[in-house]
């Protein structure tokens, strides 16, 4: 807290000093740096003589670095603000980040105003549209959840386009009606200007609402509709506002103009999409050849998308659509072509740029609010704008939903609609657009003031209140039935089952087009655009990604214990089962259990995968957990008995089962093992089709403890660190003898000798070595998360 505030003040001070210095330095600077200049030779005193002779030891040339320096300071300042409010977590739950940023901006603005300092005049139209907007839109487009998006694309477009139009026209006309009243003194605002203003403030920026929705866990459809709407109405707003700006200059608007406007809209939209597709494909194609220049791979992503944006701007077609389409197209192919590190880099840089951009905009909003001298406040206009914005959005959502609900498989009920309507906060785009209005509009200051007012009101009031309201609505729903623990668990299991079966059946709803596209994709596009066109089953690529990303992280996080602890304790538990006394539970206990369940049970598929928080990278830690668990838990199949191996004396009582994923072929049935105790520790042999890059996923250690205590039993070496090392090199697929596996085990068996159950080796092909790509020296240990915890335990 205090640190953040301190830093802010420090920087602010620097800014002011910098600003003042600028004025003073400009005079001595030329003299000290150019001793040879003699402006007034007649007035030469002893001074200049000396100056000429001596070499300046210490000079300061502020103007030279001024621009980049101040820019960096501002960015730093804004980032410190972000650090500041993340120190205290609870704040960001209740108050959306945009609020906080604006507040900080207001404070800084107030300070600057007090010291009579001018804010940097950087927020010009060019700067905004060419430098600040692209990263934000790229971020939205890159992290869009594509499957739900395309499934709901009709709805999204409907709300974005028609909704924005409805809002703009509605608000514009109402305001125009208000302006007609002489009492408000607004007569000089023409219809075009009203429409222009209305189109600007219809731009919805639901970031804060999205965060809340994601935390609450609204259904996927609602999330994606709000997300898509926020994204696409940027495009619509920009198009509309440029159109209205154009029209605002014209004294009379004819019907042909309106018609042309509509036509132009389509040109703009279609052109943007085509542009984006073009650049996306070119980018994908380029990355096909970049395997030798891995370091600059991320560059292509950014350059191509920026090119798409600029090209579209050049032709005055929708640059937002262009960059979004480019990102969507690119992402799929590029992420398959580039290396893992480049992939991570791209994601991080996209997020970073977007966050910086957005932070700066909100920050400036705060600063400019205070320091702008030409505010024009007109109570009537502003109040009515607020009122109409709210009303028209509410009505709009209602009407639009009524119309489109019949076409949807999953319909929006009233709660959803309320959420949609209330989530319509205004944000950065609105501010930037209004700020960059041409000065020919004579009431520009009023518009600026009005938009700032609206943004601040919606962001603060709606942003802060949306969480309690949504929670309230939801809470009423779930408190109706008092579930038992059983019901809660079983219903979640059933939800998972249904999700799983749905996934098994494949996507049925828009089957036809998706299938066609998939065929086209597999046959033509992938061949051209991907370097490595083996039809990898998606599980392989996903496993690969997760493994590579997380192999080392596992060592550092408690998750390293993930695979060991459960197994062990389950056996532990079994032993105690008989002797456990009957435990009575208090209601408080039960309530706590419900709490634990509701917080920690994995949500079903859509929520696990699809959502992204705008300020964070996609969180796949849960996915990771599930995958690791799945790896670690040995798949149970009912064919247990048929897999018993009679005897493997070479592998006596070793209890270590390594669940390794052979990358090789799966012709050999994967094994299951069932311990006779029935605690069900088994192998997961599910392995997809071969790729020459094999995977060695999590290894699981089952350590059975005779007596209570936990991890320390297994000696470190016994974890097969040694045997793992032997497996470093990739093993050719032809080796299928389980004897190979067996060979490595005797080393283990010596160290542990206490087990009494027969061990059945798996009939897996021997474990493969590490993926060739993983060159980390720590890779070996990384492969065995348990190596780490054993060393911890020893």
């Amino acid at each position, binding site marked *: 807290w205090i640190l953040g505030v301190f830093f802010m003040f420090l920087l602010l001070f620097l800014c002011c000093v910098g600003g003042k210095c600028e004025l003073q330095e400009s005079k001595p600077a030329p003299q000290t740096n150019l001793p040879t200049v003699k402006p007034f030779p007649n007035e030469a005193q002893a001074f200049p003589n000396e100056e000429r002779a001596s070499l300046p030891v210490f000079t300061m040339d502020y103007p030279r670095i001024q621009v980049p320096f101040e820019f960096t300071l501002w960015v730093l300042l804004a980032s410190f603000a972000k650090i500041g409010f993340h120190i205290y977590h609870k704040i960001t739950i209740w108050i959306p980040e945009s609020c906080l940023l604006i507040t900080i901006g207001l404070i800084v603005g107030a300070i600057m105003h007090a010291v009579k300092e001018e804010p940097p005049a950087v927020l010009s139209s060019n700067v905004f549209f060419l430098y600040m907007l692209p990263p934000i839109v790229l971020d939205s487009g890159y992290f869009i959840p594509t499957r739900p998006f395309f499934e709901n694309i009709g709805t999204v477009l409907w709300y974005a386009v028609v909704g924005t139009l409805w809002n703009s026209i509605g608000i514009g006309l109402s305001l125009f009606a208000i302006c007609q009243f002489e009492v408000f003194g607004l007569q000089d605002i023409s219809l075009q200007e009203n429409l222009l203003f209305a189109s600007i403030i219809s731009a919805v920026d639901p970031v804060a609402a999205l965060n809340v929705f994601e935390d609450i866990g609204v259904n996927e459809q609602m999330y994606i509709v709000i997300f898509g709407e926020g994204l696409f109405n940027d495009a619509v707003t920009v198009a509309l506002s440029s159109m209205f700006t154009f029209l605002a200059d014209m004294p009379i608007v004819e019907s042909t103009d309106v018609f042309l406007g509509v036509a132009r809209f389509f040109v703009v939209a279609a052109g943007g999409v085509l542009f984006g597709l073009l650049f996306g494909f070119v980018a994908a194609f380029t990355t096909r050849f970049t395997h030798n220049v891995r370091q600059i791979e991320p560059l292509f992503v950014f350059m191509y998308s920026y090119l798409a944006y600029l090209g579209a701007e050049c032709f005055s077609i929708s640059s937002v659509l262009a960059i979004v389409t480019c990102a969507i197209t690119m992402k799929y192919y590029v992420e398959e072509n580039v290396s893992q590190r480049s992939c991570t880099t791209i994601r991080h840089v996209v997020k970073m740029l977007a966050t910086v951009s957005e932070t700066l905009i909100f920050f400036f909003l705060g600063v400019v609010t205070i320091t702008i001298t030409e505010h024009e406040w007109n109570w009537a206009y502003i109040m009515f704008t607020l009122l109409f914005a709210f009303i028209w959005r509410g009505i709009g959502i209602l009407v639009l939903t009524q119309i489109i609900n019949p076409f949807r498989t999953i319909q929006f009920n009233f709660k959803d609609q309320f959420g949609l309507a209330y989530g319509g906060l205004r944000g950065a785009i609105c501010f930037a657009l209004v700020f960059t209005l041409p000065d020919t509009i004579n009431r520009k200051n009023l518009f600026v003031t009005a938009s700032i007012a609206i943004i601040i009101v919606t962001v603060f009031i709606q942003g802060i209140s949306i969480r309690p309201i949504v929670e309230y609505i939801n809470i009423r729903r779930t408190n109706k039935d008092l579930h038992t623990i059983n019901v809660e668990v079983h219903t979640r299991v*059933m939800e998972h089952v249904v999700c799983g079966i749905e996934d098994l059946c494949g996507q049925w709803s828009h089957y036809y087009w998706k299938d066609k596209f998939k065929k086209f994709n597999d046959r033509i596009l992938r061949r051209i655009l991907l370097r490595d066109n083996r039809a990898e089953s998606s599980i392989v690529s996903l496993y690969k990604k997760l493994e590579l990303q997380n192999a080392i992280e596992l060592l550092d996080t408690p998750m390293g214990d993930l695979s060991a602890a459960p197994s062990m304790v389950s056996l532990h538990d079994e032993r105690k089962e008989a002797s456990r006394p009957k435990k009575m539970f208090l209601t408080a206990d039960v309530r706590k259990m419900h709490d634990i369940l509701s917080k*920690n049970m994995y949500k079903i598929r859509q929520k696990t995968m699809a959502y992204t928080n705008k300020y964070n990278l996609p969180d796949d830690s849960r996915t990771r957990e599930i995958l690791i668990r799945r790896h670690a838990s040995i798949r149970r199949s009912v064919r247990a008995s048929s897999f018993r191996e009679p005897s493997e004396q070479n592998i006596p009582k070793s209890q270590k089962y390594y669940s390794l994923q052979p990358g090789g072929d799966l012709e050999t049935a994967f094994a299951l093992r069932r311990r006779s105790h029935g605690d069900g520790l088994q192998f997961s042999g599910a392995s997809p089709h071969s790729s020459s890059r094999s995977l060695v996923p999590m290894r699981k250690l089952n350590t059975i403890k005779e007596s209570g205590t936990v991890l320390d039993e297994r000696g470190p070496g016994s974890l097969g660190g040694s045997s793992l090392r032997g497996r470093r090199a990739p093993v050719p697929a032809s080796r299928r003898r389980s004897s190979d596996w067996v060979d490595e085990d005797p080393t283990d068996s010596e160290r542990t000798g206490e087990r009494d159950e027969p061990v059945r080796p798996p009939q897996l092909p021997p474990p493969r070595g590490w993926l060739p790509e993983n060159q980390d020296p720590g890779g070996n240990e990384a492969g065995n998360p348990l190596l780490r915890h054993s060393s911890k335990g020893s």
Partner: protein
Amino acid sequence: MGSSNSSVNNIPNAQELMQETGFSAAHILRLHERFEFLDKHKCGQLRPQDFGAVQELALNPIGDSIISAFFSPGQETVDFASFVRILAHFRPTDRNQSRDGAQQEPANSSIRKLKFAFQMYDQDRDGKISRAELLQVLRAMLGIQVTEEQLQSIAERAIQEADLDRDDAISFDEFRKSLEKVDIDHKMSIRFLR
């Protein structure tokens, strides 16, 4: 992509399957295409690894249990008929369906659905959910933040609530009783399989 009867007839036993499961010809066709898609080796049977190739299933916490439910004890592969029969459990129930006692229980009755859910827990098919089995499923479903003790208490509580005959395990009847307030038909149906 219609339900051309000729292609349906290419599928062996299509008519019987339709009769037995209640799927329409179009669905059978669709399922058959899906089956062939999953059957990468074109051998007419599915193996567990074919199921495993579905990415979302891998990310399902109880994905393994779901997969193993397709395989009857002792079988290593699943043919199309079994595939369809199991999927038939998830058809939405026809509310207006009137059954006389002589008719066989339809594949998508509530009992069948419940049995499928029961199988998620009861992997060894002994008709009871033991404490260990319950724990296993719980463990798979909860994040890692949950400690082992909490898991134990939750499992303990669950068994206490449901176990009426005090055998420290949940039988199918007890399971059914504990879920009597839940709309099974709604929860365990997949809309597009209607």
